C-alpha cells in the first residue's frame, strides 16, 4: 500500500465542516492522527465542542470519503484529550474564514486570570477586527452565536454585523 500520512491528509481535505463549508477538517485542526495497524487505517479526530452536532456528520463523511478512495475499512476514533483548541486551526483555514466574513480566532490566552477574570463585566476583551473592512472599532454583542463555536459582533465603522470564531 502506497498510502502515506500526507496522502491521507490530502484526501481528508475533501471533508468540509458542514457548518463552515469553506474550511476542511484538516485546516480546522480536528484530525489528530493517521495510523495504519495491520493495514487498517484509523483516523483520530477530536470534537470541537462537547455538543457540536457537526461531529457525527464529519465522522460519516470521513469514512465515506476514504471509502471512495479505496480505503473501505477505515475507521474513525474519537479522542478527547488533549482538548481541541482553536490554536490548532491552520493559517490557511483562518484566511478562508476571514474571506467568508467570519473573523478568525485569536490565539488562546493563558492569562492565568482564573475565576476573578471570569466574573467581571469590565474584563478586557481582545479587539476583533471586522472581516469586511478591517476596522478595529467593533463591539461584541454576544459570546454565543449561530453555532457553538461563534460569537456575534458589530462593526462600528462599516456598520456590518459579523460572526467571530471564538478563541477556545
Amino acid at each position, binding site marked *: 500500500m502506497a498510502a502515506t500520512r500526507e496522502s491521507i491528509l490530502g484526501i481528508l481535505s475533501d471533508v468540509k465542516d458542514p457548518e463552515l463549508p469553506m474550511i476542511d477538517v484538516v485546516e480546522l485542526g480536528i484530525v489528530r492522527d493517521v495510523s495504519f495497524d495491520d493495514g487498517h487505517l484509523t483516523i483520530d479526530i477530536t470534537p470541537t*465542542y462537547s*455538543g*457540536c452536532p457537526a461531529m457525527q456528520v464529519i465522522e460519516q463523511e470521513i469514512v465515506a470519503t476514504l471509502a471512495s478512495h479505496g480505503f473501505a475499512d477505515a475507521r474513525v476514533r474519537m479522542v478527547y484529550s488533549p482538548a481541541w483548541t482553536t490554536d490548532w486551526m491552520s493559517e490557511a483555514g483562518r484566511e478562508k474564514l476571514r474571506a467568508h466574513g467570519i473573523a478568525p480566532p485569536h490565539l488562546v490566552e493563558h492569562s492565568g486570570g482564573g*475565576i476573578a477574570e471570569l*466574573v467581571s463585566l469590565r474584563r478586557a476583551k481582545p479587539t476583533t477586527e471586522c472581516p469586511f473592512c478591517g476596522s478595529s472599532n467593533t463591539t461584541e454583542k454576544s*459570546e*454565543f452565536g449561530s453555532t*457553538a463555536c461563534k460569537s456575534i459582533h458589530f462593526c462600528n465603522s462599516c456598520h456590518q454585523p459579523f460572526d467571530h470564531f471564538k478563541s477556545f
Partner: protein
Amino acid sequence: MLGHRLSEWCGHGPILEEDIALANIALDLIGQATLFLKLAGETEGKGRSEDALAYFRDAIDYRNVELVEMPNGDYAYTMVRQFLFDVFSYHMLEQLQKSTNPALAGIAAKGFKEVRYHVRHSSEWVVRMGDGTEESHTRAQKALDDLWRLTAEMFQADDIDREMAAEGIGPDIAAIEPKWRAVVDDVMKRATLTIPNDPPAMTGGRKGRHTEYLGHMLSEMQIVARSYPGAEW
C-alpha cells in the same frame, strides 16, 4: 437535566441574543452529559448506550441534584440557578481533569473550557439584574432566596463520592464548597444581593428522591424515545 431545562427557553428568550445563548449553553451541557453517560454505559458493561440511560431511566434512577430540575421561572430565576450551578461545575470539572481515569479527565478538560463561557454569561447577568433596576433586583433576590437552600446538596459527598475521591477518580466535592462560596460571595456583593441565612433544605436528588418537577420534565424529555423505541433517522 439543566441542559433540557435551558432548552425550554428556546424560542421564548427575552431577546434574540439570550435565546441563542441559552440554546448554546444547553447544547454544551447536553453534549457533556452525552459523553459522561456514554462512558457510564461502557463502564457498566451491560450494553446500555447514552440514549438508553437518558431516555429509559425513571426519576428514581436519576442522580441529579434538585437545583437543576427546578422549573425555569422568570429570567432572574433561570440566571441565578445557572450561576449557582456554573460555578460548581467550573470547579468540579477543573478538579476532574486530574482524574486517574483518562476518559473522565478528557471529557472534563473539554467541558471545563465550555463552562468558562457559561460562568461569564451567568455571573454577568446576576450582576446586571441584582445591581439593575428595583424590579430586576427584587426578582434576582427572590430567586436567590428560593434557590439558596438547594445549593448544599452539590457538596454533600456520599460513600461513592468518597470512594472515588480516595482512588483519585473523582474530586473531593466537599472541598469544592469553599472555592465555590468565595466566587458566589464576590458576585453577590457586586450584584448587591444578600445571601440568605437559611439552613440547607432536606434534599434527596442524589439518592433518587426528587422533587415533583423531575417526573413532569422527564415525561416531556422521554416521550419520543419511549413512543418509538429503537427509532433511527
